[in-house]
């Protein structure tokens, strides 16, 4: 039976999660040079369109349709046939099935958008569009089915992922790692300054992501009640702690309290609490935020100083490693005192759950990395991944879209 409060909350949450994708566009755009700012926003914005169409045609049915062997859904709900306003008790008994479908669509949208940070300022737009279609179909949809659909094999093993630590963040983070290994580096990297062109965009984007993430996590309760409240509180606590932690580390490192560090830390905290948000207590969330700030900060230092791959906006460090930490921390800190539908973690006497979380993480890391690597290689050999050198020097705004981000005369 439909509950109006639950339905209202899930629909508002879907809108909140939708907002996160253009927010991500602003967050990423702040980091790049001004000549590619608009294209960076576009790479997120158009993903809303592309993935929404995929989702209603074949995405939702393959991800959440009736199970086929634990690995994929059937085509029974192709074109949303049979996905109406009556609740589907397999997913949420008190909201229309279409409310669940549109909420899940927003997760499918933001995941490929996250990957775009790995090849900022050099990707060929046409190739990116085709990549979005292939990657969502071949990588995102199966992983979502494995983890979230009834009959999905990782769900069957008992893997916990409240709002997408594995499905969204490990998935995007390790696809980004594959991208960074296949794409050539930005021209002049390490020789010319590539400072963020607008740090206020970075803070604006991070703030809107923080706001939208309440829908991402608390909305994943699929009802407006105690569990949504726990997820909401945990989301905020972990994010706050991670922002403070990263800022402090950057302050120690450079002698200045970095604004970018605070913003990046907040995003790392949001990522890490995602899988755990509906399973842990607030003090657990605080620990997860602390860990996220430290682990993602160190991963970024390792990537930039030792590994020296051009994961331009550190998608692997923040989403890959932050998602991994969150998934593992769920296996440590989960408690049935918060969510009776979950299980206890290692710190509450159930060591096996940590092993299940580790297994699910490794499976998703390996699958997304290998498949994404193959997709990028295939696109490189056919369409080409990067723009011409002259186009990169011009900037993606003009070379790919024929429109500059800024046209007003600079006076100060």
């Amino acid at each position, binding site marked *: 039976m439909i509950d109006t409060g639950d339905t209202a909350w899930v629909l508002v949450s879907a809108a909140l999660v939708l907002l996160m994708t253009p927010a991500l566009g602003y967050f990423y755009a702040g980091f790049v040079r001004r000549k590619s700012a608009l294209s960076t926003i576009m790479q997120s914005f158009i993903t809303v369109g592309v993935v929404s*169409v*995929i989702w209603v*045609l*074949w995405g939702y049915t393959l991800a959440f349709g009736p199970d086929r062997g634990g690995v994929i859904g059937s085509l029974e709900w*192709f*074109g949303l*046939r049979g996905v109406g306003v009556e609740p589907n008790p397999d997913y949420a008994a008190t909201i229309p099935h279409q409310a669940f479908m549109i909420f899940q669509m927003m997760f499918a949208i933001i995941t490929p958008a996250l990957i775009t940070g790995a090849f900022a300022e050099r990707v*060929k737009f*046409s190739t990116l*569009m*085709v990549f979005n*279609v292939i990657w969502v179909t071949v990588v995102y949809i199966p992983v979502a089915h494995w983890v979230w659909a009834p009959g999905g094999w990782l769900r069957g093993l008992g893997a916990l992922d409240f709002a997408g630590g594995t499905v969204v963040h490990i998935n995007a983070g390790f696809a980004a790692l594959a991208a960074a290994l296949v794409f050539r580096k930005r021209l002049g990297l390490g020789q010319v300054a590539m400072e963020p062109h607008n740090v206020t965009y970075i803070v604006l984007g991070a703030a809107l992501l923080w706001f939208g993430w309440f829908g991402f996590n608390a909305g994943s309760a699929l009802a407006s009640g105690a569990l949504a409240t726990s997820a909401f509180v945990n989301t905020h606590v972990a994010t706050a702690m991670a922002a403070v932690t990263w800022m402090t580390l950057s302050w120690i490192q450079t002698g200045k309290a970095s604004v970018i560090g605070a913003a990046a830390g907040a995003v790392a905290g949001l990522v890490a609490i995602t899988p755990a948000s509906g399973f842990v207590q607030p003090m657990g969330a605080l620990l997860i935020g602390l860990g996220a700030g430290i682990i993602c900060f160190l991963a970024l230092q390792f990537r930039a100083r030792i590994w020296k791959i051009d994961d331009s906006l550190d998608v692997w460090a923040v989403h890959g490693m932050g998602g991994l930490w969150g998934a593992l921390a769920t296996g440590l800190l989960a408690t049935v005192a918060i969510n009776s539908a979950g299980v206890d973690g290692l710190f509450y006497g159930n060591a096996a759950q940590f092993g299940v979380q580790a297994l699910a993480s490794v499976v998703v890391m390996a699958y997304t990395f290998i498949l994404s690597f193959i997709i990028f290689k295939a696109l490189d050999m056919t*369409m080409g991944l990067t723009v*011409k050198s*002259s*186009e990169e020097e*011009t900037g993606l705004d*003009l*070379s790919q879209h*024929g429109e500059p981000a800024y046209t007003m005369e600079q006076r100060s």
Partner: protein
Amino acid sequence: MFEIISTVVFLGMVITWIVIEPLCDRKSTANKTGGTRTAS
């Protein structure tokens, strides 16, 4: 039926994304004044 038509139309757009750059490049090579893109 609508689902099939919509899928065909959408996949048609995907094919357009794949072929549009080579076609534009060929056109701009043949006629350097053609096209509106700044860098091509």
